[in-house]
């Protein structure tokens, strides 16, 4: 999972956080997803959310379940250059929204520990 994304900025509060993120077009995953047609794998974005949640909560977050995850827009690395990841959490539930410019690209509700 090296080199998939880069955090440009983070703003972490008690119950929520906002990250500005760049997906890196040079990531080797695009050699296989897909050859000649780079599309961000949804699973890699889920892992990116887990890593950002780990930063926000200051511990290694594990996903025990995904209640619902909706991929509304395909993401290509570099277009748009910057994505916004909004996280909010309560007890062991984490909500995540990935915005591409002002449009919701991914919505995710998961159980964590």
């Amino acid at each position, binding site marked *: *999972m090296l080199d998939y994304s880069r955090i440009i900025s983070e703003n972490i509060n008690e119950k929520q956080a906002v990250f500005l993120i760049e997906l890196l077009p040079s990531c*080797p*995953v695009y*050699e*296989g*997803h*897909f*050859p000649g*047609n780079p*599309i961000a*794998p*949804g*699973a*890699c974005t*889920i*892992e990116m959310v*887990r890593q950002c949640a780990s930063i926000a909560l200051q511990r290694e977050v*594990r*996903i*025990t*379940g*995904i*209640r*619902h*995850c*909706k*991929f509304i827009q*395909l993401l290509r690395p570099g277009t748009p250059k910057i994505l916004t990841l909004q996280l909010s959490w309560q007890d062991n539930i984490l909500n995540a929204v990935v915005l591409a410019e002002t449009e919701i690209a991914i919505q995710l509700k998961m159980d964590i520990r």
Partner: protein
Amino acid sequence: MNRQYTYEQIEQLIPQRAPIKMIDSAVSVENLSVQTSLLVRDSNWFYSDGYLLEAGLVEHIAQSAAAMVGMKNEDAPKEGYIGDIKNFKVSRLPRLGELIQSRVMVIAQLDSITMVEAESKIGNELVASAQMKVFLAE
């Protein structure tokens, strides 16, 4: 009739390639379900510190669903994307060297959208399950 695909032949079914090819074998069972496998190797894209990450199970299930669709098409495999995931549960992360065996069943299919239900086991132990919608590009 059951059809079996080996590691090399998987590329006839799915468009994903290294480093994010997440199934090693696939067998169709009476056209209704597919059984796939994945050995957890340290070279896996989603491998981290002795384990396969949660997202690795998600991608493995999605590609198993893609393989199922691929078996029904004679053409070159189409690119597919996860549209929706529901009720994904992980009881534990697979460890290095463990063999994940997954069973994917089609619940509904409408044009380019396939809805599946999947269970991933290590031996007899259920480690993950999910419902997923995958989209195929035209």
